[in-house]
C-alpha cells in the first residue's frame, strides 16, 4: 500500500514539473500579449518611427523583416527542396551522401552568431554586398537551409514506395515519376517544414546584427542593397540601447507582440497545413 502511494507521489512530482513548464510558457505569451495589445494601433503599424524609435510607429521595421523573410525564402526554399529530392530519391549510400548528411547536421548545429560572422566575412566584405538586404537574406538562408532539407526529406519519405514503383512500371522515367507521382503528395509536407524555417528566420537577431540591421533608419528600402531595420533587432535596441528604457516600455511590448504574432502565426499556419494535408491523404 505504501508503495502505491509512493508511486502516486512520484507521478505527482512529474505532473507538477510538466505543468510548471507549460505555465511558464503560457505566462510569457500572456505577458507580452497583455502589455502589448494596448500599443497596437493602425498608427503604430503604419507610422514612421521618431526619436530613435521611442515614439511613432514601426512600419519600416515590419517592411524590413518582410523583405528579409522574402529574400530568405527565395534563396533557401528551392535549394532546400531540390537538395531534399536528391537525398531522398537519387542519392546512393556512399561516401559523398554521408558527407552531405554530415554537412547538414553540422550546419544545423552552428550557432546563429557564427552565421553572422560568416555572412559578414563572405557577403558583406568579400563579395562587397555591404550591410544590405541581400547579405542578410543570404546569411539567413544558409542558416535555415538544413531545417528545410530535413523537413522536406521527411515529407518525401512519407510517400509510399508503391507510388514510385507503379509509375516506373508504366515506363515513366525517374524524373517524370518524381514530378508527377511523388512531389504532388509531398509538397504540403515540404511546405510545412519550410514555414517553420521561415518563422525561425523572422525571429533571429544575431545573424542580421552583423549583416544588415540598421540601428535607426526611418525610411523604406528601395533596393536589395539597402540596409533595413528589422523587428528582432529593433526590439533589442528598444529594450537595451535607448537612454530611458523604462519610458519606451509600451513601444517595446508593441514590437515584441508584432514579432510574436508574425512568428507564432507562421508556426500556426504550418500546423494547419499539416493537419489538413493529413486528412486529405491517407495511405
Amino acid at each position, binding site marked *: 500500500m505504501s508503495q502505491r502511494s509512493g508511486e502516486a507521489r512520484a507521478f505527482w512530482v512529474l505532473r507538477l514539473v510538466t505543468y510548471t*513548464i507549460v505555465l511558464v510558457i503560457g505566462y*510569457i505569451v500572456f505577458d507580452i500579449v497583455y502589455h502589448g495589445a494596448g500599443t497596437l494601433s493602425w498608427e503604430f503599424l503604419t507610422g514612421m518611427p521618431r526619436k530613435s524609435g521611442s515614439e511613432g510607429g514601426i512600419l519600416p521595421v515590419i517592411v524590413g523583416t518582410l523583405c528579409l523573410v522574402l529574400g530568405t525564402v527565395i534563396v533557401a526554399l528551392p*535549394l532546400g527542396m531540390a537538395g531534399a529530392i536528391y537525398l531522398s530519391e537519387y542519392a546512393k549510400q556512399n561516401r559523398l551522401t554521408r558527407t552531405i548528411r554530415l*554537412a547538414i547536421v553540422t550546419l544545423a548545429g552552428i550557432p546563429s552568431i557564427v552565421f553572422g560572422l560568416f555572412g559578414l566575412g563572405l557577403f558583406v566584405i568579400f563579395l562587397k554586398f555591404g550591410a544590405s538586404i541581400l547579405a542578410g537574406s543570404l546569411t539567413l538562408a544558409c542558416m535555415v537551409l538544413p531545417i528545410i532539407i530535413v523537413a522536406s526529406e521527411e515529407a518525401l519519405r512519407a510517400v509510399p514506395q508503391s507510388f514510385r514503383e507503379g509509375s516506373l512500371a508504366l515506363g515513366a522515367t525517374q524524373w517524370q515519376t518524381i514530378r508527377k507521382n511523388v512531389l504532388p503528395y509531398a509538397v504540403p509536407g515540404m511546405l510545412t517544414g519550410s514555414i517553420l524555417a521561415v518563422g525561425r528566420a523572422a525571429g533571429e537577431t544575431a545573424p542580421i546584427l552583423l549583416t544588415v540591421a540598421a540601428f535607426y533608419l526611418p525610411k523604406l528600402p528601395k533596393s536589395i542593397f539597402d540596409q533595413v531595420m528589422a523587428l*528582432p533587432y529593433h526590439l533589442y535596441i528598444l529594450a*537595451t540601447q535607448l537612454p530611458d528604457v523604462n519610458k519606451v516600455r509600451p513601444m517595446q511590448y508593441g514590437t515584441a507582440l508584432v514579432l510574436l504574432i508574425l512568428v507564432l502565426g507562421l508556426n500556426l499556419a504550418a500546423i494547419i497545413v499539416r493537419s489538413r494535408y493529413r486528412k486529405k491523404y491517407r495511405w
Partner: protein
Amino acid sequence: MTRTLWQEKAARLLLQGAALTSLLIVLLIVVFLGKESLPFLSKPGWMELFRTRWNPVSFEREMFGILPLLSGSLVVTLLATVIAVPFGVCAAVYLAEVATVAERELFKPFIELLAGLPSVVIGFFGLVVLVPLVKQVFHLQTGLTALTGALLLALMAIPTIISISEDAIRSVPLSYKEASLALGASRLQTIWKVTVPAALSGITAGVMLGIGRVIGETMAVMMVTGNAAVITFSPLQSVRTMTATIAAEMGEVPFGSAHYRALFCVGVVLLIFTFGLNIIAQRVLKKYRIGA
C-alpha cells in the same frame, strides 16, 4: 526520347548541385572564419588569447584573453544544463508514460511553441520580469547575473530535451515494459529501472543537442547577464559569454584590426565547441537507433 533523356540528366545534376550546397556552405564557413581569424595567431600572437583579461579597447594595452569569456559561457551553460535536464527529462517521462492522451495532445505542441519563440523575445521577457525578480530574491544590486541568463537558457533548451527524450522513451519496445510489469514491478519501478535506462542514449542525445543550443544562444544571454568580462564561477555575478561578446562588439570594431580578428577567433572557438557536441550527439543517437 533524347529530349526526355536530356531532361533526366539535367534534373539529376541540378538536384545534386542543390544537395552539395550544404557541404559548400560548411566549407565556406570554415574558410572565411579561418581567413579572418588566422592572422591573429601570428600578430599579436596566439598566446594573447590565453590571457586572463578581455580588454580590447584600451589606450595603454589591449588585452584579448578569451578565458573570461570562456568561463562566462561555461558557467551559464553548466547552470542552464543543471536546471534544464531534470525539468526536461521529468516532463518527457510524464508526457510519454504517465500523461493522459488529452494532456499529451495539448502539451506537446504547446511546449514546441516555446522552441519557436524568438530568443530576443525571451530575452526581453527576462529583462522586464526575471531580472527584477532575481534582484529581489537574492538581495543583489543588479539582477543581471549568470543565473538569470541560465534560467532563460534552460527555458530554451527544455523543448529540445523534451522532444527528443520523449521520442526515445516512446520507442522503447513495449515487450520490455510488459516483461517488467509481469515480474511484479510497479509502474514507477518499470519507468525508473527499465524504460528510462533503455532510452538513455536517446535522452543523452537530446540533452547534448539542448546544450548545443545553449552555448550558441546569443540575444537572450546578452540582454540579461550584465556582460562583465571577469573570470568567475559564481552564479550571482555578472558574466559575459563568447556569443554576447561577438554580438556586442563586432558592430564597432575597425575592419582588419586585432580586435576584429580576436572576435573571429572567439567565433572559431564557438564553432569547435558546437561541432564537437553535435558529433558526439549524432554518435549517441545512431547507437540508440540501432539498439531500438
